[in-house]
Protein backbone atom coordinates (compact mmCIF):
# COMPACT_ATOMS: atom_id res chain seq x y z
CA UNK A 1 0.00 0.00 0.00
CA UNK A 2 2.80 2.40 0.87
CA UNK A 3 4.30 1.74 -2.55
CA UNK A 4 1.07 2.94 -4.13
CA UNK A 5 1.05 6.12 -2.05
CA UNK A 6 4.69 6.75 -2.71
CA UNK A 7 4.22 6.19 -6.43
CA UNK A 8 1.30 8.61 -6.60
CA UNK A 9 3.17 11.30 -4.66
CA UNK A 10 6.31 10.84 -6.72
CA UNK A 11 4.27 10.97 -9.89
CA UNK A 12 2.73 14.30 -8.86
CA UNK A 13 5.74 15.69 -7.04
CA UNK A 14 6.43 18.67 -9.28
CA UNK A 15 2.88 19.96 -9.09
CA UNK A 16 2.62 19.19 -5.39
CA UNK A 17 5.90 20.87 -4.52
CA UNK A 18 4.90 23.98 -6.46
CA UNK A 19 1.46 24.08 -4.90
CA UNK A 20 2.57 23.38 -1.34
CA UNK A 21 5.80 25.35 -1.15
CA UNK A 22 5.04 28.21 -3.55
CA UNK A 23 1.29 28.70 -3.83
CA UNK A 24 0.39 28.17 -0.18
CA UNK A 25 3.04 30.59 1.21
CA UNK A 26 1.94 33.05 -1.49
CA UNK A 27 -1.63 32.64 -0.30
CA UNK A 28 -0.52 33.30 3.27
CA UNK A 29 1.22 36.46 2.07
CA UNK A 30 -1.84 37.54 0.15
CA UNK A 31 -4.06 37.03 3.18
CA UNK A 32 -1.60 38.99 5.31
CA UNK A 33 -1.80 41.81 2.76
CA UNK A 34 -5.60 41.70 2.81
CA UNK A 35 -5.68 41.83 6.59
CA UNK A 36 -3.27 44.79 6.63
CA UNK A 37 -4.69 46.85 3.81
CA UNK A 38 -8.37 46.07 3.52
CA UNK A 39 -11.36 45.84 5.75
CA UNK A 40 -12.41 42.39 4.52
CA UNK A 41 -13.96 40.13 7.09
CA UNK A 42 -11.31 38.03 8.76
CA UNK A 43 -13.75 35.18 9.23
CA UNK A 44 -14.32 34.42 5.59
CA UNK A 45 -10.77 34.75 4.36
CA UNK A 46 -9.64 32.37 7.11
CA UNK A 47 -11.18 29.61 5.01
CA UNK A 48 -9.18 30.43 1.91
CA UNK A 49 -6.32 28.03 2.71
CA UNK A 50 -8.83 25.21 2.68
CA UNK A 51 -9.75 26.10 -0.90
CA UNK A 52 -6.06 26.42 -1.70
CA UNK A 53 -5.26 23.00 -0.27
CA UNK A 54 -8.24 21.49 -2.10
CA UNK A 55 -7.04 22.97 -5.38
CA UNK A 56 -3.68 21.33 -4.66
CA UNK A 57 -5.17 17.85 -4.53
CA UNK A 58 -7.78 18.52 -7.23
CA UNK A 59 -5.09 18.17 -9.85
CA UNK A 60 -4.24 14.75 -8.46
CA UNK A 61 -7.84 13.66 -8.53
CA UNK A 62 -8.24 14.84 -12.11
CA UNK A 63 -5.06 13.15 -13.28
CA UNK A 64 -6.11 9.91 -11.65
CA UNK A 65 -9.37 10.02 -13.53
CA UNK A 66 -7.86 11.01 -16.87
CA UNK A 67 -5.25 8.29 -16.68
CA UNK A 68 -7.81 5.75 -15.43
CA UNK A 69 -5.82 4.97 -12.33
CA UNK A 70 -8.55 2.75 -10.85
CA UNK A 71 -8.54 0.64 -14.00
CA UNK A 72 -4.75 0.54 -13.93
CA UNK A 73 -4.35 -0.44 -10.29
CA UNK A 74 -7.28 -2.81 -9.82
CA UNK A 75 -5.45 -5.56 -11.71
CA UNK A 76 -2.54 -5.45 -9.26
CA UNK A 77 -2.53 -8.20 -6.63
CA UNK A 78 -3.50 -5.76 -3.89
CA UNK A 79 -6.74 -5.89 -1.89
CA UNK A 80 -9.30 -3.27 -2.81
CA UNK A 81 -9.44 -1.78 0.69
CA UNK A 82 -5.70 -1.17 0.48
CA UNK A 83 -6.09 0.43 -2.95
CA UNK A 84 -8.85 2.66 -1.61
CA UNK A 85 -6.88 3.56 1.52
CA UNK A 86 -3.83 4.36 -0.57
CA UNK A 87 -5.97 6.52 -2.84
CA UNK A 88 -7.37 8.42 0.14
CA UNK A 89 -4.07 8.83 1.99
CA UNK A 90 -2.27 9.99 -1.14
CA UNK A 91 -4.72 12.89 -1.16
CA UNK A 92 -4.85 13.54 2.58
CA UNK A 93 -1.04 13.72 2.88
CA UNK A 94 -0.49 16.65 0.45
CA UNK A 95 -3.66 18.32 1.70
CA UNK A 96 -2.39 18.32 5.27
CA UNK A 97 1.09 19.33 4.09
CA UNK A 98 -0.42 22.30 2.25
CA UNK A 99 -2.28 23.40 5.37
CA UNK A 100 0.80 23.00 7.56
CA UNK A 101 2.95 25.05 5.17
CA UNK A 102 0.26 27.70 5.08
CA UNK A 103 0.07 27.91 8.86
CA UNK A 104 3.85 28.11 9.17
CA UNK A 105 3.94 30.93 6.63
CA UNK A 106 1.03 32.71 8.25
CA UNK A 107 2.57 32.38 11.70
CA UNK A 108 5.84 33.74 10.37
CA UNK A 109 4.08 36.73 8.83
CA UNK A 110 1.52 37.62 11.47
CA UNK A 111 1.92 35.29 14.38
CA UNK A 112 -1.69 34.25 13.91
CA UNK A 113 -2.37 30.55 13.71
CA UNK A 114 -5.32 28.27 14.19
CA UNK A 115 -3.75 25.08 12.97
CA UNK A 116 -5.95 22.78 15.02
CA UNK A 117 -9.22 24.33 13.88
CA UNK A 118 -8.01 24.79 10.32
CA UNK A 119 -6.86 21.20 10.25
CA UNK A 120 -10.12 19.86 11.63
CA UNK A 121 -12.37 21.89 9.37
CA UNK A 122 -10.13 21.52 6.30
CA UNK A 123 -9.44 17.82 6.49
CA UNK A 124 -13.03 17.18 7.54
CA UNK A 125 -14.28 19.07 4.49
CA UNK A 126 -11.83 17.36 2.18
CA UNK A 127 -12.73 13.89 3.44
CA UNK A 128 -16.40 14.73 3.25
CA UNK A 129 -16.18 15.97 -0.35
CA UNK A 130 -13.92 13.26 -1.68
CA UNK A 131 -15.48 10.49 0.38
CA UNK A 132 -18.98 11.46 -0.76
CA UNK A 133 -17.89 11.47 -4.36
CA UNK A 134 -16.27 8.04 -3.90
CA UNK A 135 -19.40 6.67 -2.27
CA UNK A 136 -21.49 7.87 -5.21
CA UNK A 137 -19.07 6.21 -7.63
CA UNK A 138 -18.82 2.99 -5.65
CA UNK A 139 -22.43 2.42 -4.76
CA UNK A 140 -24.39 4.18 -7.49
CA UNK A 141 -21.88 4.05 -10.37
CA UNK A 142 -22.20 7.82 -10.73
CA UNK A 143 -18.89 8.49 -12.40
CA UNK A 144 -18.09 12.04 -13.41
CA UNK A 145 -16.69 12.18 -16.90
CA UNK A 146 -14.39 14.57 -18.68
CA UNK A 147 -11.34 16.44 -17.60
CA UNK A 148 -11.34 19.31 -15.20
CA UNK A 149 -14.43 18.06 -13.45
CA UNK A 150 -13.06 18.45 -9.97
CA UNK A 151 -11.46 21.81 -10.55
CA UNK A 152 -14.56 23.09 -12.32
CA UNK A 153 -16.73 21.69 -9.55
CA UNK A 154 -14.57 23.23 -6.87
CA UNK A 155 -14.62 26.59 -8.61
CA UNK A 156 -18.39 26.48 -8.89
CA UNK A 157 -18.66 25.44 -5.26
CA UNK A 158 -16.34 28.27 -4.20
CA UNK A 159 -18.39 30.80 -6.19
CA UNK A 160 -21.57 29.40 -4.69
CA UNK A 161 -20.10 29.64 -1.20
CA UNK A 162 -19.00 33.21 -1.88
CA UNK A 163 -22.46 34.10 -3.18
CA UNK A 164 -24.10 32.49 -0.18
CA UNK A 165 -21.68 34.31 2.08
CA UNK A 166 -22.50 37.70 0.59
CA UNK A 167 -26.21 36.96 0.71
CA UNK A 168 -26.22 35.63 4.24
CA UNK A 169 -24.02 38.32 5.73
CA UNK A 170 -26.15 41.03 4.16
CA UNK A 171 -29.47 39.31 4.61
CA UNK A 172 -31.96 39.22 7.42
CA UNK A 173 -30.12 36.71 9.59
CA UNK A 174 -27.71 38.59 11.84
CA UNK A 175 -27.00 35.54 14.01
CA UNK A 176 -25.93 33.54 10.97
CA UNK A 177 -23.88 36.45 9.70
CA UNK A 178 -22.08 36.70 13.03
CA UNK A 179 -21.33 32.96 12.91
CA UNK A 180 -19.97 33.12 9.37
CA UNK A 181 -17.94 36.20 10.12
CA UNK A 182 -16.44 34.67 13.19
CA UNK A 183 -12.71 34.05 12.78
CA UNK A 184 -11.56 30.46 12.93
CA UNK A 185 -9.91 31.18 16.24
CA UNK A 186 -13.28 31.76 17.83
CA UNK A 187 -14.14 28.10 17.19
CA UNK A 188 -11.36 26.98 19.48
CA UNK A 189 -12.67 24.95 22.32
CA UNK A 190 -15.98 24.24 20.61
CA UNK A 191 -16.98 20.80 19.40
CA UNK A 192 -18.01 21.97 15.90
CA UNK A 193 -14.69 21.45 14.07
CA UNK A 194 -14.06 18.13 15.81
CA UNK A 195 -17.53 16.92 14.82
CA UNK A 196 -16.85 18.04 11.26
CA UNK A 197 -13.59 16.09 11.16
CA UNK A 198 -15.31 13.07 12.67
CA UNK A 199 -18.03 13.20 10.02
CA UNK A 200 -15.39 13.47 7.29
CA UNK A 201 -13.50 10.52 8.76
CA UNK A 202 -16.64 8.40 8.85
CA UNK A 203 -17.42 9.14 5.20
CA UNK A 204 -13.78 8.72 4.14
CA UNK A 205 -13.31 5.41 5.96
CA UNK A 206 -16.65 4.15 4.64
CA UNK A 207 -15.47 4.87 1.10
CA UNK A 208 -12.44 2.63 1.74
CA UNK A 209 -14.73 -0.33 2.27
CA UNK A 210 -17.25 0.48 -0.47
CA UNK A 211 -14.51 0.59 -3.12
CA UNK A 212 -14.53 -3.20 -3.34
CA UNK A 213 -18.25 -3.18 -4.11
CA UNK A 214 -17.97 -1.27 -7.36
CA UNK A 215 -19.71 -2.72 -10.40
CA UNK A 216 -16.96 -1.49 -12.66
CA UNK A 217 -13.40 -0.18 -12.44
CA UNK A 218 -13.18 0.76 -16.09
CA UNK A 219 -13.36 4.57 -15.85
CA UNK A 220 -14.19 4.57 -19.55
Amino acid at each position, binding site marked *: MWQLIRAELE*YQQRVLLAAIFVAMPALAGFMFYLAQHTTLSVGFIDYMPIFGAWATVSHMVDTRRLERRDRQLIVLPVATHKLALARLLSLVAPFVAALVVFVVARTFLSGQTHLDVLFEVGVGLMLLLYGSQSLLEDLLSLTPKGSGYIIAGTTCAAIAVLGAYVYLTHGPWPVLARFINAPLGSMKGTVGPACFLLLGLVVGVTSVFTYGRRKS*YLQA
Partner: protein
Amino acid sequence: MAPAFRCTGLIKSYPGFRLGPLDMELEPGVVLGFIGPNGSGKTTTMRCLSGLVRPDAGDVELCGRAVDHADPHWKADVAIVTHRQPFYENWSGARNLAFLAKFYPAWSADTAAALAQRFDLALGTRVRNLSRGNRAKLGIVAALAAGPRLLLLDEPTAGLDPVVRDDVLSVLFDLLESGDRTVFYSTHILSDIGRLADELAFLVDGQVVLRQPVDDLVENWRSITFRLSGEQPELTGAVYCERSGDDGRTISCDGDLTAAHLGELGAEHIRPTPMGIDEIAVHIMKGGYHVAADQG
Protein backbone atom coordinates in the same frame (compact mmCIF):
# COMPACT_ATOMS: atom_id res chain seq x y z
CA MET B 1 -4.62 -29.22 -11.85
CA ALA B 2 -7.27 -26.49 -11.61
CA PRO B 3 -8.51 -24.97 -14.85
CA ALA B 4 -6.90 -21.69 -15.86
CA PHE B 5 -10.37 -20.23 -15.63
CA ARG B 6 -13.84 -21.48 -15.03
CA CYS B 7 -17.02 -19.47 -15.21
CA THR B 8 -20.40 -20.85 -14.27
CA GLY B 9 -23.69 -19.18 -15.08
CA LEU B 10 -21.93 -15.91 -15.82
CA ILE B 11 -24.39 -13.14 -16.68
CA LYS B 12 -23.76 -9.48 -17.31
CA SER B 13 -26.43 -7.17 -18.66
CA TYR B 14 -26.28 -3.70 -20.10
CA PRO B 15 -29.16 -1.78 -21.65
CA GLY B 16 -29.90 -3.61 -24.89
CA PHE B 17 -27.39 -6.38 -24.32
CA ARG B 18 -27.05 -9.46 -22.19
CA LEU B 19 -24.03 -11.73 -21.93
CA GLY B 20 -24.65 -15.32 -20.96
CA PRO B 21 -25.45 -17.33 -19.03
CA LEU B 22 -21.95 -18.46 -19.89
CA ASP B 23 -20.38 -21.72 -18.75
CA MET B 24 -16.80 -22.10 -19.87
CA GLU B 25 -13.50 -23.34 -18.66
CA LEU B 26 -9.99 -23.40 -20.04
CA GLU B 27 -7.41 -26.05 -19.30
CA PRO B 28 -3.83 -24.99 -18.61
CA GLY B 29 -1.56 -24.93 -21.64
CA VAL B 30 -4.39 -24.30 -24.11
CA VAL B 31 -4.64 -21.27 -26.39
CA LEU B 32 -8.31 -20.48 -26.84
CA GLY B 33 -9.39 -18.01 -29.50
CA PHE B 34 -12.56 -16.19 -28.54
CA ILE B 35 -14.14 -15.11 -31.79
CA GLY B 36 -17.20 -12.99 -32.28
CA PRO B 37 -18.47 -9.96 -34.16
CA ASN B 38 -18.31 -6.51 -32.63
CA GLY B 39 -20.79 -6.19 -29.78
CA SER B 40 -21.09 -9.92 -29.21
CA GLY B 41 -19.80 -9.70 -25.63
CA LYS B 42 -16.14 -10.70 -25.95
CA THR B 43 -14.81 -7.70 -24.09
CA THR B 44 -17.51 -7.97 -21.42
CA THR B 45 -16.50 -11.59 -20.87
CA MET B 46 -12.85 -10.58 -20.54
CA ARG B 47 -13.73 -7.83 -18.10
CA CYS B 48 -15.78 -10.17 -15.95
CA LEU B 49 -12.99 -12.74 -15.93
CA SER B 50 -10.35 -10.22 -14.96
CA GLY B 51 -12.43 -8.56 -12.26
CA LEU B 52 -12.66 -5.23 -14.06
CA VAL B 53 -16.42 -5.58 -14.09
CA ARG B 54 -18.63 -7.31 -11.56
CA PRO B 55 -20.97 -9.87 -13.16
CA ASP B 56 -24.67 -9.67 -12.39
CA ALA B 57 -24.69 -13.39 -11.63
CA GLY B 58 -22.47 -16.44 -11.79
CA ASP B 59 -19.14 -17.54 -10.42
CA VAL B 60 -15.69 -16.99 -11.86
CA GLU B 61 -12.56 -18.85 -10.80
CA LEU B 62 -9.09 -18.12 -12.06
CA CYS B 63 -6.38 -20.72 -11.50
CA GLY B 64 -8.50 -22.36 -8.82
CA ARG B 65 -9.27 -19.17 -6.89
CA ALA B 66 -12.52 -17.25 -6.84
CA VAL B 67 -12.39 -13.81 -8.39
CA ASP B 68 -12.65 -11.80 -5.21
CA HIS B 69 -11.16 -8.35 -4.80
CA ALA B 70 -10.83 -8.73 -1.05
CA ASP B 71 -8.44 -11.66 -1.52
CA PRO B 72 -6.36 -10.55 -4.47
CA HIS B 73 -3.84 -13.40 -4.75
CA TRP B 74 -5.46 -14.66 -7.94
CA LYS B 75 -4.44 -11.45 -9.67
CA ALA B 76 -0.78 -12.43 -9.55
CA ASP B 77 -1.59 -15.39 -11.79
CA VAL B 78 -3.46 -13.39 -14.41
CA ALA B 79 -2.52 -10.64 -16.80
CA ILE B 80 -4.86 -8.82 -19.11
CA VAL B 81 -3.83 -6.83 -22.16
CA THR B 82 -6.27 -4.54 -23.90
CA HIS B 83 -5.84 -2.02 -26.67
CA ARG B 84 -6.18 0.83 -24.14
CA GLN B 85 -3.76 -0.22 -21.45
CA PRO B 86 -3.52 2.44 -18.73
CA PHE B 87 -0.12 3.55 -17.42
CA TYR B 88 1.43 6.45 -15.55
CA GLU B 89 1.48 8.66 -18.66
CA ASN B 90 4.28 10.96 -17.60
CA TRP B 91 6.59 8.16 -16.60
CA SER B 92 8.76 6.28 -18.99
CA GLY B 93 8.01 2.71 -19.93
CA ALA B 94 10.92 1.59 -17.77
CA ARG B 95 9.58 3.51 -14.77
CA ASN B 96 6.16 1.98 -15.24
CA LEU B 97 7.65 -1.50 -15.44
CA ALA B 98 9.71 -0.86 -12.30
CA PHE B 99 6.52 0.17 -10.52
CA LEU B 100 4.69 -2.99 -11.60
CA ALA B 101 7.63 -5.19 -10.66
CA LYS B 102 7.08 -4.40 -6.97
CA PHE B 103 3.71 -6.15 -6.96
CA TYR B 104 4.31 -9.38 -8.85
CA PRO B 105 6.30 -12.12 -7.10
CA ALA B 106 7.08 -13.82 -10.42
CA TRP B 107 8.15 -10.62 -12.16
CA SER B 108 11.19 -11.02 -14.39
CA ALA B 109 13.19 -7.93 -15.24
CA ASP B 110 15.22 -10.01 -17.67
CA THR B 111 12.06 -11.05 -19.49
CA ALA B 112 10.91 -7.45 -19.64
CA ALA B 113 14.24 -6.29 -21.05
CA ALA B 114 14.38 -9.12 -23.58
CA LEU B 115 10.81 -8.52 -24.74
CA ALA B 116 11.37 -4.81 -25.09
CA GLN B 117 14.41 -5.52 -27.21
CA ARG B 118 12.47 -8.01 -29.27
CA PHE B 119 9.74 -5.45 -29.84
CA ASP B 120 12.31 -2.74 -30.51
CA LEU B 121 10.59 -0.71 -27.81
CA ALA B 122 12.33 2.35 -26.37
CA LEU B 123 11.67 2.00 -22.64
CA GLY B 124 13.12 5.41 -21.86
CA THR B 125 10.33 7.24 -23.66
CA ARG B 126 7.46 8.69 -21.70
CA VAL B 127 4.32 6.67 -22.17
CA ARG B 128 2.33 9.70 -23.31
CA ASN B 129 4.78 10.10 -26.19
CA LEU B 130 4.52 6.48 -27.31
CA SER B 131 2.63 5.61 -30.48
CA ARG B 132 -0.40 3.34 -30.18
CA GLY B 133 1.65 0.47 -31.48
CA ASN B 134 4.37 1.01 -28.91
CA ARG B 135 1.78 1.36 -26.14
CA ALA B 136 0.38 -1.99 -27.19
CA LYS B 137 3.88 -3.45 -27.09
CA LEU B 138 4.48 -2.01 -23.63
CA GLY B 139 1.23 -3.55 -22.44
CA ILE B 140 2.33 -6.95 -23.71
CA VAL B 141 5.79 -6.59 -22.16
CA ALA B 142 4.23 -5.65 -18.81
CA ALA B 143 1.83 -8.57 -18.95
CA LEU B 144 4.37 -11.21 -19.89
CA ALA B 145 7.07 -10.00 -17.51
CA ALA B 146 4.64 -10.54 -14.62
CA GLY B 147 4.86 -14.28 -15.32
CA PRO B 148 1.12 -14.96 -15.41
CA ARG B 149 -0.32 -18.47 -15.56
CA LEU B 150 -3.20 -17.11 -17.63
CA LEU B 151 -2.88 -14.41 -20.24
CA LEU B 152 -6.06 -12.60 -21.25
CA LEU B 153 -5.66 -10.75 -24.53
CA ASP B 154 -8.61 -8.56 -25.40
CA GLU B 155 -8.08 -7.34 -28.94
CA PRO B 156 -4.66 -5.98 -28.00
CA THR B 157 -4.00 -4.77 -31.54
CA ALA B 158 -7.34 -3.02 -32.11
CA GLY B 159 -6.91 0.35 -33.74
CA LEU B 160 -3.39 -0.33 -35.01
CA ASP B 161 -2.56 0.09 -38.65
CA PRO B 162 -1.97 -3.19 -40.53
CA VAL B 163 1.81 -2.88 -40.60
CA VAL B 164 2.17 -2.23 -36.87
CA ARG B 165 -0.46 -4.85 -36.12
CA ASP B 166 1.43 -7.44 -38.07
CA ASP B 167 4.63 -6.40 -36.36
CA VAL B 168 3.11 -6.74 -32.88
CA LEU B 169 1.34 -10.01 -33.64
CA SER B 170 4.30 -11.73 -35.24
CA VAL B 171 6.48 -11.09 -32.18
CA LEU B 172 3.65 -11.96 -29.81
CA PHE B 173 2.96 -15.22 -31.60
CA ASP B 174 6.62 -16.18 -31.67
CA LEU B 175 6.70 -15.65 -27.93
CA LEU B 176 3.53 -17.57 -27.26
CA GLU B 177 4.46 -20.44 -29.55
CA SER B 178 7.78 -20.91 -27.83
CA GLY B 179 6.34 -21.25 -24.32
CA ASP B 180 3.78 -23.36 -22.57
CA ARG B 181 1.23 -20.59 -22.12
CA THR B 182 -2.44 -20.54 -21.32
CA VAL B 183 -3.99 -17.82 -23.42
CA PHE B 184 -7.52 -16.58 -23.85
CA TYR B 185 -7.44 -14.35 -26.92
CA SER B 186 -10.48 -12.33 -27.88
CA THR B 187 -10.77 -10.87 -31.35
CA HIS B 188 -13.15 -10.42 -34.24
CA ILE B 189 -10.32 -10.91 -36.73
CA LEU B 190 -9.70 -14.61 -37.02
CA SER B 191 -6.38 -14.22 -38.79
CA ASP B 192 -5.11 -12.64 -35.55
CA ILE B 193 -5.35 -15.93 -33.71
CA GLY B 194 -5.98 -18.66 -36.28
CA ARG B 195 -2.40 -19.82 -36.51
CA LEU B 196 -1.89 -19.97 -32.75
CA ALA B 197 -5.16 -21.24 -31.27
CA ASP B 198 -5.67 -24.81 -30.15
CA GLU B 199 -9.39 -24.24 -29.83
CA LEU B 200 -11.87 -21.65 -31.00
CA ALA B 201 -14.98 -20.50 -29.19
CA PHE B 202 -17.51 -18.48 -31.15
CA LEU B 203 -19.57 -15.91 -29.34
CA VAL B 204 -22.71 -14.57 -30.99
CA ASP B 205 -25.18 -12.27 -29.22
CA GLY B 206 -23.74 -13.02 -25.80
CA GLN B 207 -23.83 -16.80 -26.21
CA VAL B 208 -21.09 -19.27 -27.07
CA VAL B 209 -22.59 -21.02 -30.10
CA LEU B 210 -19.69 -23.34 -30.77
CA ARG B 211 -16.39 -24.34 -29.20
CA GLN B 212 -14.16 -26.82 -30.95
CA PRO B 213 -10.52 -27.64 -31.48
CA VAL B 214 -9.25 -25.93 -34.61
CA ASP B 215 -8.22 -29.29 -36.09
CA ASP B 216 -11.76 -30.65 -35.71
CA LEU B 217 -13.25 -27.61 -37.39
CA VAL B 218 -10.90 -27.90 -40.34
CA GLU B 219 -11.45 -31.64 -40.55
CA ASN B 220 -15.25 -31.61 -40.33
CA TRP B 221 -16.43 -28.48 -42.09
CA ARG B 222 -16.88 -28.85 -45.83
CA SER B 223 -18.23 -26.93 -48.75
CA ILE B 224 -20.10 -29.51 -50.83
CA THR B 225 -21.33 -29.12 -54.39
CA PHE B 226 -23.86 -31.57 -55.78
CA ARG B 227 -26.54 -32.12 -58.38
CA LEU B 228 -30.01 -33.05 -57.20
CA SER B 229 -33.37 -32.66 -58.91
CA GLY B 230 -36.50 -31.64 -57.04
CA GLU B 231 -37.06 -29.53 -53.93
CA GLN B 232 -34.22 -28.60 -51.64
CA PRO B 233 -34.21 -31.13 -48.81
CA GLU B 234 -33.16 -30.39 -45.25
CA LEU B 235 -29.65 -31.77 -45.13
CA THR B 236 -28.12 -33.20 -42.00
CA GLY B 237 -25.26 -31.04 -40.76
CA ALA B 238 -25.85 -28.30 -43.32
CA VAL B 239 -25.56 -24.73 -42.09
CA TYR B 240 -26.07 -23.06 -45.45
CA CYS B 241 -27.51 -24.10 -48.81
CA GLU B 242 -27.85 -22.48 -52.23
CA ARG B 243 -29.41 -23.86 -55.40
CA SER B 244 -29.26 -22.94 -59.06
CA GLY B 245 -31.53 -25.33 -60.90
CA ASP B 246 -30.39 -28.84 -60.10
CA ASP B 247 -26.94 -27.65 -59.03
CA GLY B 248 -26.52 -26.99 -55.36
CA ARG B 249 -23.89 -26.00 -52.85
CA THR B 250 -24.01 -26.47 -49.12
CA ILE B 251 -21.78 -25.64 -46.19
CA SER B 252 -21.68 -28.44 -43.66
CA CYS B 253 -20.30 -28.64 -40.15
CA ASP B 254 -20.06 -32.41 -40.65
CA GLY B 255 -18.99 -33.01 -44.23
CA ASP B 256 -19.07 -36.80 -44.11
CA LEU B 257 -22.58 -36.89 -42.66
CA THR B 258 -23.97 -34.40 -45.16
CA ALA B 259 -22.32 -36.12 -48.10
CA ALA B 260 -23.77 -39.47 -46.97
CA HIS B 261 -27.22 -37.90 -46.64
CA LEU B 262 -26.94 -36.43 -50.12
CA GLY B 263 -25.97 -39.86 -51.42
CA GLU B 264 -29.05 -41.39 -49.79
CA LEU B 265 -31.20 -38.74 -51.47
CA GLY B 266 -29.81 -39.72 -54.87
CA ALA B 267 -27.65 -36.67 -55.43
CA GLU B 268 -24.92 -36.89 -58.05
CA HIS B 269 -21.50 -35.30 -58.49
CA ILE B 270 -21.08 -34.85 -54.73
CA ARG B 271 -17.80 -32.98 -54.22
CA PRO B 272 -16.78 -32.04 -50.66
CA THR B 273 -14.10 -29.37 -50.50
CA PRO B 274 -12.12 -28.49 -47.33
CA MET B 275 -12.74 -25.01 -45.99
CA GLY B 276 -10.38 -22.44 -44.57
CA ILE B 277 -10.84 -21.45 -40.94
CA ASP B 278 -11.79 -17.90 -41.96
CA GLU B 279 -14.61 -19.14 -44.13
CA ILE B 280 -15.86 -21.45 -41.39
CA ALA B 281 -15.82 -18.61 -38.88
CA VAL B 282 -17.81 -16.33 -41.16
CA HIS B 283 -20.57 -18.92 -41.48
CA ILE B 284 -20.69 -19.52 -37.73
CA MET B 285 -20.80 -15.83 -36.91
CA LYS B 286 -23.50 -15.22 -39.50
CA GLY B 287 -25.68 -17.48 -37.42
CA GLY B 288 -25.44 -20.56 -39.63
CA TYR B 289 -24.44 -22.78 -36.78
CA HIS B 290 -27.65 -21.91 -34.94
CA VAL B 291 -29.61 -23.16 -37.99
CA ALA B 292 -27.68 -26.39 -38.06
CA ALA B 293 -28.14 -26.98 -34.35
CA ASP B 294 -31.88 -26.29 -34.61
CA GLN B 295 -32.23 -28.71 -37.51
CA GLY B 296 -30.28 -31.37 -35.67
